[in-house]
């Protein structure tokens, strides 16, 4: 299976169920999309994140499989929060991403849509320092409360501060 070049043209991807759903429901939310290595990634705008995720959830992508973040330091917007959604009916997995600025990193919490996202958001908050607005209990989860810094940020040294 040789690698195919990534497809980023929305026109060519519009028949993918997840994109079709977003394009008909709220086209304004889509920033861009990419189909690479059999996986579809959709970037949505920060203000439309919750609505877009809710739309996908009430369509068939009802399962939130994973929630994490990536730090692209030093470029800006610095962070990407990554939601991996799963549809049991379509047997399809998509990735929804939202870009977050490094100066004031926050996104809306999805705990209202999936209660189970709570520890995942706490983990991202703990290790990346991205705040989730509307999260009922945003505290550190893996590290001690008094820990300084957020280890998974790229400007945090691998061996820690000594």
């Amino acid at each position, binding site marked *: 299976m040789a690698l195919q070049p990534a497809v980023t043209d929305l026109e060519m991807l519009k028949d993918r169920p997840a994109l079709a759903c977003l394009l008909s429901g709220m086209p304004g939310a889509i920033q861009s999309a990419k189909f690479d*290595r059999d996986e579809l990634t959709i970037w949505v705008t920060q203000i439309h994140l919750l609505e877009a995720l809710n739309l996908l959830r009430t369509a068939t992508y009802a399962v939130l*499989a994973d929630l994490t973040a990536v730090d692209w330091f030093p470029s800006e917007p610095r962070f990407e929060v990554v939601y991996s959604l799963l549809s*049991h009916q379509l047997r399809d997995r998509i990735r929804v991403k939202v870009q977050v600025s490094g100066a004031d990193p926050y996104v809306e919490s999805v705990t209202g849509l*999936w*209660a189970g996202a709570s520890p995942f958001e706490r983990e991202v908050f703990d290790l990346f320092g991205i705040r989730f607005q509307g999260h*009922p209990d945003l505290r*550190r989860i893996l*590290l001690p409360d008094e820990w300084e810094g957020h280890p*998974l940020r790229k400007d945090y040294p*691998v061996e820690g501060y000594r």
Partner: protein
Amino acid sequence: MPSIDQFRSVPVVETIGGDRTMVLNMGPQHPSTHGVLRLLLEIDGETIVRIRPDIGFLHTGIEKTCEAKFYQQVIPMTDRIDYLCPMTNNFAYVLAVEKLLGLEVPPRALWIRLMLNELTRINSHLVWLGTHAMDIGAMTVFLYCFREREEILKMFEMVAGQRMMTSYFRVGGVSMDLPLGFLDYIKNFAAYFPDRIEQYSDLLTNNPIWIGRTKGVALITRNDALELMLSGPTARGSGVDWDLRRDMPYGGYEKLDFKVPVATGGDVFARYQVRMEELRESISMVKQAIANLPDGAYKADAPKIVLPDREKMKTQMESLIHHFKIVTEGFTVPEGEVYQGVESPRGEMGYYVVSDGTAKPYRVHMRSPSFANLNAIGVMCEHNLLADVVAAIGSIDIVLGDVDR
């Protein structure tokens, strides 16, 4: 009724332990928390009002460490995440990297991986069954389970030289071929193991004490299971008919013939039924893999990615160069990102690997099943008795290395 609203309400730290209730600390050194899990139990008499898990005692920053290693150096670390199913972790990671590279593995490697992955599932389920039964008071089962587990660990030692941290899978195949006599050993095991499952089942399934401790205990509904992001046997015990091996096959599972056991009880007993049935399915899959195992190469022919044979390295200049390059500089992986989910014994184990085109991963994220499944504990135990908490923890089959990473 158990409710998941507790995840949406503002907790607790202030309100905990009001007039009626008291807070009991359980763990982190408690024998039935299966590791270093600390639970804050708010109790009213013997009834659980609320549970708050406190985790992080085993956090070692594996995700951060991965970013400083070559792609092939990450494999030993994946063993240490979920230490009861090292091969499943290896499997998920190498599949993700192979997907990034567009690399295909030869059939022999594929079948070896499937065989060992299912053996790993049996290994993990045996530990679960033994410790779970012991928590509830059935001491004997533990001894029998560990007798069989020992055989599996011996097999791991035969193929990988290690009993627990096997690091046997490689990007492009496995690290070495199966040793002489291994197939006879595993055939012998596969012949008698189904009877042993019946033995365990005889000890428990109709045992009135076992039924009393498990039936109707720690209930969770199908909808709650989905919303709390549960997966694996924990979700299948609540009627979620979903198994990545069958529904989104990876690594050759489409070639195997197996059923996905589902139970609808939603209680500890239902999860027990699912896992017992999975043991039977897994040993049948191991048998299928033995029958299908072809001869041939055990690693892909990709000299820039896969280490050369020892003999070639000492006789051919090119192989020596490739070997030197891979060991000192690693191999580069084209830019991109993949998420590879596999069905670990506990649920969906997902590896999200981002490559920036260098020889080290830009980001490795492990979506560990125990981390998500731990969500269930609060909902399961609400309004249950204090003594049932250990049954609930055992039925989730939690591994703290997997939770904390």
